[in-house]
């Protein structure tokens, strides 16, 4: 016990640094994937057939292959095939590649949620809007979107919680996130070897953060409880 207390400041410092990387990846992915998902959703619902077919094909490929493979390909492909590492060297290059992979992957998942939300609004409401003389964009923003947001919050919450945990996949391209930091104490990092307890702390970081995300999304869901 004394030993754990002695090692605690070193472990917490390393875990905090790793968790900062995890948080950065989470927020950057969220900021990029939420709007991009909407663009992809419009693409897949487009009446211009080639665009909708192409978008659906991309979504199918991205959703049908593991994120880990996408990370490996996105990070290593340019350097190995074109002979030019477009991501830049060091931690920032790995972060950028991870962020691009996560944004694209999650945007595809979000797009399907958006599409489901948009298509769940009865067509009759759009027709009613048209009859009332509203423009298409007015109908979208004032009739459809409000209902879509309410309907997509629960499935989006699910995806967002999964995203928090999925950020750990970035370690496959050696991004030093929190699990990397926790596991390193098994193998002699900072003079601490064979210590498994930092991994329990690592899990606690995820649990607490997911708890906060769950509470916040729950509140959002309640706030949107206006169409009952």
């Amino acid at each position: 016990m004394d030993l754990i207390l002695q090692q605690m400041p070193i472990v917490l410092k390393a875990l905090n640094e790793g968790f900062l990387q995890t948080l950065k990846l989470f927020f950057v992915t969220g900021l990029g994937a939420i709007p991009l998902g909407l663009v992809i959703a419009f693409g897949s619902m487009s009446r211009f057939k080639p665009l909708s077919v192409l978008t659906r094909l991309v979504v199918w490929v991205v959703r049908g292959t593991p994120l880990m493979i996408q990370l490996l390909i996105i990070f290593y492909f340019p350097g190995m095939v074109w002979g030019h590492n477009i991501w830049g060297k060091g931690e920032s290059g790995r972060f950028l590649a991870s962020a691009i992979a996560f944004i694209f992957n999650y945007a595809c998942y979000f797009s399907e949620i958006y599409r489901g939300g948009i298509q769940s609004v009865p067509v009759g409401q759009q027709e009613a809007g048209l009859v009332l003389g509203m423009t298409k964009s007015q109908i979208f923003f004032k009739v459809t979107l409000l209902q879509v947001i309410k309907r997509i919050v629960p499935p989006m919450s699910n995806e967002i919680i999964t995203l928090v945990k999925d950020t750990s996949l970035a370690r496959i391209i050696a991004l030093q996130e929190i699990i990397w930091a926790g596991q390193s104490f098994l193998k002699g990092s900072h003079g601490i070897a064979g210590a498994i307890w930092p991994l329990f702390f690592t899990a606690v970081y995820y649990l607490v953060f997911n708890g906060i995300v769950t509470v916040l999304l729950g509140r959002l869901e309640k706030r949107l409880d206006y169409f009952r």
Partner: protein
Amino acid sequence: MRQKLRAALCLALCAILLATMCACGGSGGYRVVDDYSGESSYHIAFRKGDRLKDYVSAAMEVLASSSVLRASSVRWFGENLIAVDADADAMEPYWDSVPARTVIVGIDLNNMPLSYLSNAGYEGFDVEFILQICDYLSWDVSFYPIAMENAEIELNAGNIDIAMAVQDSAVTDNMDISPAYLTSRYVLVARYGSHIRRRSGLKGKTLGVTVADEKVLYQNEKFVQSLGSVIYQTNTEGLFQALMKGEVDGVLSSSIVAAYYMK
């Protein structure tokens, strides 16, 4: 009669003193009992066709002719394990073409005592070794931790310029390597004070091995069957701690790691 008694007492005292010294161990309390497998060399790996290889290899040979690398090896392992041929003039053909640059060095942080992370940052023999070479070439160094099994991909994708501690078994056609800078073999190690002095002494005893070296252990299944039990550790630090505490009677380890703990 008195003189004989005094001489006998003196002899007995000397014997006790000698036995105590042996038990304490001038070599950190461990003894190599037997060799377990053939030699394996450690190389520095580069991208295929990268001129960096010529500069680094030549710099290694120049530094091997001075006491720099030797002193480093003695500090880490207690003896000179440097396997590089010395040539004080090896850099002569290259000085005109050596560019000023920053090299990104990929290291495995789970490779005590070659490379690991301490509170002070990256440490280990490899870290010191490559810093000395780059210092000689007036290059800046930036370290990046990689998974050793990805060394070839990291090199060819341009994420790192140099991968340290690439063993013979990991060398592929898609990378260039420097001459070996360290050689290692697997050895069986026991506590200095124990009665285990040869491999047969481990019969029916408990042997410690790291998870990563399990394959090496099972190269000799007959030996494994002769053991009482095998205990796995995740790292070399835990392995030698278990040996020190008497939790295991012997350990299987690379000679470099053993030299570090026996120092």
